[in-house]
């Protein structure tokens, strides 16, 4: 049963591939577009993409696993990407992370259902750290209070 389901093309993935003329050099764009819509890249999606672009499954898997952005599992409803790079460390992002972890009872880079915390290395907001990217909105001088506020007022996922 599962194998049968898996061999059926993923309609949206197929559409995105054909919009990119099934060009293998546009694989990253294709994966981004699908992930924005679907939230993650399922086996069925990857199977469809490799078939459409005429790439081996290993090639597609190799790309998906190389880049931190691509996710093979469903993500939390609210993913908070916190910058852990040097300039944010210099303004004690470690304390912010600890505060957020304990408030939501979660661990950095360890999934979560409603809220999850993800490491990101530099958001280009290094003069106004700690910096956070949340649903494609950038935040600066972030405190626990600011995180609570952003989650309370979720504006909905924006596309790039």
């Amino acid at each position: 049963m599962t194998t049968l389901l898996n061999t059926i093309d993923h309609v949206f993935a197929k559409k995105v591939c054909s919009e990119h003329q099934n060009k293998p050099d546009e694989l990253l764009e294709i994966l981004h577009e699908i992930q924005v819509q679907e939230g993650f890249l399922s086996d069925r999606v990857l199977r469809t993409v490799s078939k459409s672009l005429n790439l081996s499954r290993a090639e597609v898997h190799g790309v998906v696993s190389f880049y931190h952005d691509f996710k093979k599992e469903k993500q939390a409803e609210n993913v908070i990407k916190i910058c852990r790079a040097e300039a944010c460390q210099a303004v004690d992002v470690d304390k912010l992370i600890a505060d957020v972890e304990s408030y939501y009872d979660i661990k950095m880079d360890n999934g979560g259902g409603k809220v999850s915390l993800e490491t990101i290395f530099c958001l280009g907001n290094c003069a106004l750290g700690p910096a956070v990217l949340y649903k494609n909105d950038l935040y600066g001088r972030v405190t626990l209070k600011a995180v609570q506020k952003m989650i309370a007022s979720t504006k909905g996922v924006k596309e790039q």
Partner: protein
Amino acid sequence: MIVNVYVPCDAAALSVGADDVANAILKHSKGKVNIIRNGSRGMLWLEPLVEVETPKGRVAYGPVSVEDINSLFASNFLEGGDHPLLNGITEEIPYFANQERLTFARVGKIDPLDLNDYQANGGLLGLKNALSMQSDEIVDIIKSSGLRGRGGAGFPTGIKWETAGAQPKGQKYICANADEGDSGTFADRMLMEGDPFSLIEGMIIGARAIGADKGYIYVRSEYPHAISTLKSAIVIMEDAGWLGDNINDTETNFELSVRIGAGAYICGEESSMLESLEGKRGQVKVKPPIPAISGMFGKPTIVNNVLTLGSVPFILAHGANSYANFGEGRSKGTQPFQLAGDINRGGLVEKAFGVSMEDLINGFGGGTKSGRQIKAVQAGGPLGGYITPENFDVAMGYETLAEAKTMLGHGGLVVFNDTANMLNLARYAMEFCEIESCGKCTPCRIGSVRGKETLDKIASGENIEENIQILDDLCDLMEEASLCAMGGLTPMPVRTAMRLFPNEFNNPIVVS
């Protein structure tokens, strides 16, 4: 009378509430203001920086929050009235007035997507000149301007262009490296968001110089605002006939697209970036061949940093000397320096090379924001070395910084106060290398893991002397045997931290 009020749409300004401020002003003004969304002036500690156009010039208020709007109106700020947040005429604020803005001349001044505004402020002059020149004339001007790569390696731009131009006619590419992964840097982002046409103009000039008709801007996915501004800017340039076939009725054709990265620091390395642009894993490739000879899809390709390309229009507009007259020694022209971390006045300072680190950190930057002592500054991003205040007299330049055992990199300076734990920072350098290594060579892929483990042992007080020796040997190996600067330079922050703060390694504060 309708008053022009500028509220930046730069991501850093948005990150501290610029959108809300713009909306609040609009709501309160009852049709009396015209809000223009500009780039940021780079005085990031004042963001959101609201500027009001007055007969005396643009008057700055900042940092403005929604709560200040009532009192600003009550203080008659639309006529430049006095208010606790008043900073005077923007261009007279010392931080701004003491800069030499060539590459960033328009950033913060204009509406980034207004092509008329761009042209009214010197935009397209360089391109128009270039379109009337032969390829080798353009290359000669870039060569004599002394422009060198701003992406980290500092390679002379003119020579790179000459090499690509000398390849047989046929498909060639030009790629802008907008992967800006170094912590403490944001100048590429600010230029792309604040003056995207200048990057595009620089790319068209480069394309004409080498005979390329296709280009890509590879932007990191962490920059959604820059991506959307660039995409809009490309459409505007296409509609105006500055991109596409027969640009300005010449034989120059150029097609430009934006490609988005996917969260990999190594994709800033040019061969990795080119692989990624082909839709592959961003694995580093052995050089030679260099991309200028065999790059994207095996074709001659020039890869240049955003700031390098963004400096080209000025040089073509005003001549090589007008650029080369700035700077010192083999570091010609200006560099947009970026002040970050625990810094009082963080932001972007474009200065001629030769300015001292002291002037940047304590002069422009005003020391730490926390008020604590500065312990160290990391220059040149995550692969750059630490430097302590005793050596702040170093002049900023490619060679001078290398002599001081650090590097210019992309021009970022990250300030740490006296609470910084250097052993933790050294460990982080190894951890970052472990996470971001492309995996091609062992010294980097495995060395970084061993380095992190060894630092953990030192931190827990285990055989300290022996482990410091092991770490030292490991750093030698990584430096000598890594294929690219990721593995090759990760020892730089580690070793400078150990050399400057030996006590923190020899007698670590053991946390049980």
